[in-house]
Each structure stands twice: as C-alpha cells, then as structure tokens.
C-alpha cells in the first residue's frame, strides 16, 4: 500500500504561536487514518495546514508526489483534496442543491458533474427530498451529510474530515463513520479523519495517530492504539 499524503517535519502556527512541531505523518492510499488527541492538541491546525489555510513555516506536504506547500487553497480541490470542515461547514444561505453543485463546480465537465450529483443523492437519500431547502433549515445530521456529499462531488482522492461527530448524537456519528468505511471499501477513497471521539474513530480507522500539544506522539495501527490504555491515559486524559 503506497502513501497518498506525506507530511514531513511540518511546523506551523499562527503568528507568534507555533502549534505544530515537527509533524511527520503519512496517509496510506485507500485507507482511513484517524488523528486523535485532546482539544488544543493541534488537530484542526493540522488540517488547515494540509489545505493551505495555514502555511507551514518548515517541512513539506506532498500528495502523490506533488508538493502542496505552495498550492493555493482554491487549487487544493484540483489536486484531489476535499475537506469537510469542522462544525458542519454548509453555506447556510444556499440550498442543498446549490451546496452540492458548488462542490463539483471546479470541474469543467458538466455531464460528469450531474452524474456525480445523482450518485450523491443516492448515497444520502434524506437530502434528496430537501433539494430546495436552504442550508439553515437542515438538522445537524443532515448538514453533516450535505458537507460530506459536497466534498464527494469533487471526486477527491483524499477526503479530510474535521470532527464529524461534533454535536451529533452517537447513533448518527456511528452512521457517518460507517459510511466512510463503506466509501473506502467500495470506492477506494482515502480518508484522513480528525476526532476527539477516540473510540468511535479508532473503531473504523485503519491507522491511528495521536497528537499531543502539536506533536505526533504515536502512529500505529488503529486497533493497537485503541487497546493501549496507557497511551490513552497519558495523552487523552482518560
């Protein structure tokens, strides 16, 4: 299994505050990698750095051999990355349909885009009935589906998710995580997932990475990590 995304020696932060220290991370192709860690560990900053919203002060980020450190945010999607932002990042003023269309807009091929759109509606049936509803009329779970569906519209190689469980009932969280597993198995999607909800995340992930105070403190197969109670206590507080 080859590595799709590679971070090596990445330092990043906001102005005087360095959040990520010397982060090395690899995301193997067609797998789910979960990054876990307490709040404030730098998980969100990690995603923002990969997507170009925060520029690393040192180190390199590569996807399939392409250096991402100088690629503009709006070109990330053209390099096969799609992000589902924290807090169900739906543009609430736009309708469900418009949100989804937006996800595939960067591609010139309109026929292909409309085919993908119907695929996404198949995948998320609840959205089908709410095509014309504005984003702010959706429930939390529906918004999360919409955000994931919109990311899928881009036909990404790598899907990045920022705390998909946030504020969702455990049952819905479980559904969404299961869906990610299905996408990996059926379509060969590669996923980088950030979660506070350690147990759920490591449950479906292939690989686990523990981040603490901006440093990678463990990177192991997910099952192994989930079983390591010492590590859990030390870095997650429980």
């Amino acid at each position, binding site marked *: 299994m080859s590595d799709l995304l590679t971070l090596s020696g990445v330092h990043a932060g906001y102005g005087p505050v360095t959040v990520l220290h010397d982060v090395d991370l690899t995301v193997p192709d067609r797998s789910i990698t979960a990054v876990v860690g307490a709040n404030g560990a730098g998980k969100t900053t990690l995603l923002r750095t990969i997507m170009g919203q925060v520029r690393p002060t040192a180190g390199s980020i590569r996807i399939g051999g392409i250096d991402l450190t100088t690629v*503009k945010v*709006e070109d*990330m999607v053209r390099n096969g990355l799609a992000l589902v932002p924290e807090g169900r990042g739906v543009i609430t003023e736009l309708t469900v349909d418009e949100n989804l269309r937006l996800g595939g807009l960067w591609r010139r091929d309109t026929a292909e885009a409309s085919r993908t759109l119907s695929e996404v509606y198949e995948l998320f049936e609840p959205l089908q009935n709410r095509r014309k509803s504005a984003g702010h009329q959706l429930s939390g779970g529906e918004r999360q589906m919409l955000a994931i569906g919109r990311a899928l519209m881009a036909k990404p190689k790598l899907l990045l998710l920022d705390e998909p469980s946030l504020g969702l009932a455990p049952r819905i969280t479980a559904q969404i995580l299961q869906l990610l597993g299905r996408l990996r198995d059926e379509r060969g999607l590669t996923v980088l997932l950030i979660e506070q909800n350690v147990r759920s995340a490591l449950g479906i992930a292939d690989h686990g990475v523990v981040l603490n105070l901006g440093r990678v403190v463990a990177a192991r197969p997910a099952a192994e990590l989930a079983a390591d109670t010492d590590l859990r206590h030390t870095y997650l507080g429980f």
Partner: protein
Amino acid sequence: MELERFIFLTVDGLARGAVYAAFALSLVLIWRAARIVNFSQGAIAMAATYIAFVVTSMTGNYWLGLVAALLGGAAIGLIVERGVMRFVSPVNPLNSVIAALGVLLVIQAVVGMLFGNGYYPMAVPFSQEPLPWLAGLSISAYDLFVFVCVAFVVLGLAVLFGKTNVGLRMRAAAFSPELARLLGVRSTRMITLGWMLASAISGLAALLVIPTELGLNPHATDLVFVYAFTIAVVGGLDSAPGAVIGGLVVGVLLSWVSGYLGATLSPVAVLVLLLAVLLIKPGGIFSVTKERTA
C-alpha cells in the same frame, strides 16, 4: 385635482425610485461580495457617466455611450478593487470606509481636472415629455426606458445569481469566502467580479438619473449616493429584493415629502427614515436574517 397630483407624485417617485434601487443594488452587491459599504460608489458611477458622455459626444450615439458607461464602470470598479481596496486591512472596518472616501476624493478631483467643474447637459434617447396615451399619469418615454433598464438589471442579476455557475460561485464567495475557497472557488476573483458588476450597474443608474437633474458634474451623484445608501440600509444590506422594493418605497416617499411638505425637506426625510430603520429594525425592513455585525 388632488388625486391627479397624488398619482403624478407617486409615478414620479416610482421612476426615480427605480434608478435609486439600481444604485442601491450596486451597494448591496459590493457589501455581499466584500463586506464593504462602498462610499466611493457615487464617484465611480459619476466617472462612468463622464466616459459615456465623452463617447456619446464623439460618436453622437447614445447607445454607444450607454455601453461605454457599463464597460467604463466595470473598469473603474476593477481598478478600485485591485488597486486600492484589496490592500486595505480588513481588521478594522473603518479602514475600508476611509479608503473608499479617499478614492471618492481622488475620482472627483481627477474628473474635475479633466473636465472642469462645470455642468454638461446629458443627452437622452427618448423624449422626456409625457406620453399622450398615458394621459394623467405623466409618464414619459424616458421614464419607461428607465423602468425597462432597471427591470433588465434586476432580472439579469436574478438570472445570474439564481441560474448560472458564476453566480453560484459569487454567492458562495460572498457568504462564506473561506469555505468557498476550499471548494475550489477563486474567491478573490469573485470579489473583483462583484465590484465590476456593481460599478457597471451604478454607472448605468447614474447615466439614467443625471439627465433628469441639472447636468453632469463631479458632484452629480453625491445626493444619489446618500439616497441609495438609505435604500440599501432600509432594505437590508444583504438583500437584493430589499434594495429593489426599498428603492421604490423610498422614491415614492421622497416624492410625497417634496410634493406635500416641500422639496427642500427630502434630505431630512431620508435622514429620519435612515435613523428610524437603524434604531428600530437594524437588520433592515425586508431582512429576516440575523442582526448585522459590521
């Protein structure tokens, strides 16, 4: 007699209101694209009208002038956004207001230096005399032309934003620029496009309204800007339909005020309306969304 006057004032107000609405739309466009209340919009529109004036005088063709106003407006919008506003730190919202005021002064001064501060009469493509077959309404062919132009702008924007991919990108960039970028939308380009579109529309609005006043001069749009600002606030700065309805309402209101209470009072009426709306319903009368935070 009284009724006839009432009808006349109402119709006249609608005609003016339609132009103000178009102008207010341009403010709404820029606000939505860049979260900036563009205090230089009046000056941009005025400069675009000078371009139209030059083209019309040289070619003798009104329609070429109209096209020139649209293109010229867009070009000035481009220059102002790319050349100035983009470099203004958004940290303090006052900065963009001050920079826009600076742009206003520069444009007025440059136009004044190029053309002098005198008044130029503006040509109109249609007669401004009342149409006989609309007796009693005092609508002229020019009024109808104005209505058609504004309707065209409103419908055009509705189609652009509602039906096209570019419009969808612009809306996404306006509502959530960072998210839009993550989805591959070139947000900064969309902001520039918003400025160009808005400036072209305001140029058209100025071209329509100036012939009904004393003539083209560097300050021809000062008062129009204040009216348009009021309309945009009344309608809710985020709401395009609000700007259109607000424009018509404010136009009629101003016409009644100047007809029944005295023409000199209309700026006072605008001030009162503006204060009332901002203090009682700060989101604008036609806006249902959250309070504004600018």
